[in-house]
């Protein structure tokens, strides 16, 4: 049972409104004095005078009603004005945008890697059902799928960076910095997807058209990789697109451990340093991205798997 696609698309603005209101309310929840915080962000650490606080309150319109202020906040946010960071004292939007690009790079590379690896591993496992390649792949993926990102990432740092010195332990900037976060994020979905490809392949290999292809005298390799694997690829692509939003969560932890300046680390550092405007901005972008990706994934899965179209 699912809601219709039309309902979901129509409800998206509503969800975004709810989250933007929540983000707007955060300073109220936390009891942050916005006049003081803004003043601090703009000028020096010197204790502000009463007049300065009064002036800034007037300028920000802090004495208006909640709804008026929310309307103003929303209007600014839509035009990309998320205010000024309390810590770096520079506008929030460029920081959030840069971080989003970094996160998107990592997440999409990781999903791509997972889809490719999982297809290969799943097909190999299915073609060798119950023989050692299958046992190895299935066993490894059962273990990998259960290891959380905050255990897996340090383990990878230990193996790849410290023991074998293949990649830098943390940081960002060069090409080799991308490898560790991408691998850390890709492993668990690879394990999950490869199991799904495997079982789909086993189903497919039972189909009459596969037998036909074999009777025609096509080599087994060609039957497996061309005729059967194509079907599984569709399934894993659908799954991959649905997985992207969930991966943003894992990215938060991986980015913090590996010092990748993405959206997750931005949210984390904004939270730990009480940088409210930066946190609000990052939050809204992350939520919007999640929902947008979800909708796109929904459309992709609808196009790729025709039977789902009418559900």
């Amino acid at each position, binding site marked *: *049972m699912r809601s219709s696609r039309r309902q979901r698309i129509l409800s998206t603005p509503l969800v975004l409104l709810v989250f933007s209101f929540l983000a707007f309310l*955060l300073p109220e929840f936390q009891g942050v004095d916005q006049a003081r915080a803004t003043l601090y962000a703009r000028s020096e650490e010197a204790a502000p005078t009463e007049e300065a606080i009064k002036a800034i309150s007037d300028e920000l319109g802090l004495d208006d009603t909640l709804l008026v202020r929310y309307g103003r906040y929303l209007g600014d946010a839509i035009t990309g004005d998320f205010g000024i960071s309390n810590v770096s004292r520079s506008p929030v939007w460029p920081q959030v945008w840069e971080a989003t690009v970094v996160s998107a790079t990592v997440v999409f590379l990781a999903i791509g890697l997972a889809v490719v690896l999982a297809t290969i591993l799943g097909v190999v496992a299915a073609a060798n059902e119950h023989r050692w390649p299958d046992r190895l792949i299935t066993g490894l993926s059962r273990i990998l799928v*259960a290891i959380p990102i905050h*255990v897996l990432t*340090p383990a990878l740092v230990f193996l790849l960076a410290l023991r074998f010195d293949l990649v830098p332990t943390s940081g960002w900037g060069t090409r080799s910095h991308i490898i560790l976060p991408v691998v850390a994020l890709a492993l668990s979905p690879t394990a999950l997807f490869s199991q799904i490809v495997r079982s789909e392949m086993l189903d497919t290999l039972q189909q009459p058209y596969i037998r036909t292809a074999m009777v025609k005298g096509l080599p087994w390799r060609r039957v497996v990789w061309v005729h059967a694997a194509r079907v599984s690829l569709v399934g894993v692509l659908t799954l991959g697109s649905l997985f992207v939003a*969930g991966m943003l969560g894992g990215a938060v932890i991986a980015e913090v451990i590996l010092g990748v300046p993405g959206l997750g680390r931005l949210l*984390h550092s904004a939270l730990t340093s009480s940088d409210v405007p930066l*946190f609000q901005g990052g939050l809204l972008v992350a*939520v919007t991205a999640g929902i947008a990706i*979800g909708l796109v994934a929904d459309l992709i899965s609808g196009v790729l798997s025709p039977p789902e179209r009418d559900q």
Partner: protein
Amino acid sequence: MRTRTWAKVAAGIAVLAVAVWWRVTHDPNEQDLLNRFSSPSLAAPFGTDGFGRDMLSRIVDGAVITIGAASTALAVTAVIGTTLGLFAAWRGGRTGSALLVVTDSLVAVPEVVVALIAVSIFGTNLGALMIAVIVVGWLPFARLSFELASRVLGSDYAMAAQMTGTSSVRIVRFTLLPNVLRPLISLTFLRFPGRLLLLSGLSFLGLGPQPPTPEWGAMLADGVEELERHPFVPLVPGLAIVLTGFAAAHLGRRLEAPATGPTN
């Protein structure tokens, strides 16, 4: 088969007893700066951490905190989600489709991000973490209970019960609950590893209980700083998290199996 099960239970109880005895005789927060990062030995079976604190008794305390918090939060989530789902199924119509729309839209919002909002409101402590886990976790319970209950309530036997004038309470007790309970319990166990990982993951990021509380995620974060020279220190809490998740997932699959028939 049955003797093997009993042997497993007995072994489990024995291990638990030894761990509890160890915890009672060893203070998890007592520092011993002369024996920092000591390897596993009879004096400290899991070694000691950067303050020379006994890792085994910290793991035992951490088990109570981490598993306790995760399962409490999960139980609350399950009750809230199930209540919402059953209510929507009972009302049907608009309420039902509203629930579907809400859950379908929220499912795309990354859990960790919602959890960060909860932490930013309620602060960095164990209670805030539990609230975070509760806030993000009710969706699948609402979905599953809604679908199961809609199916049961739409069935011929539920109709028959209603037409013969059976009271609502009796329908819920004897028609609805027996049909929805088992899958929901199985879902609860299957969801446990994810909740454990979310909770310890947030705590790993320093958003949970503050030192010296021996929460597993926080212990792991402490240990990771010594990854290069003392890989054993992060290994212990890391393994604790992974193995507990494994065990719960295994239990969930066992519970699920009889309901859906043998799976391969």
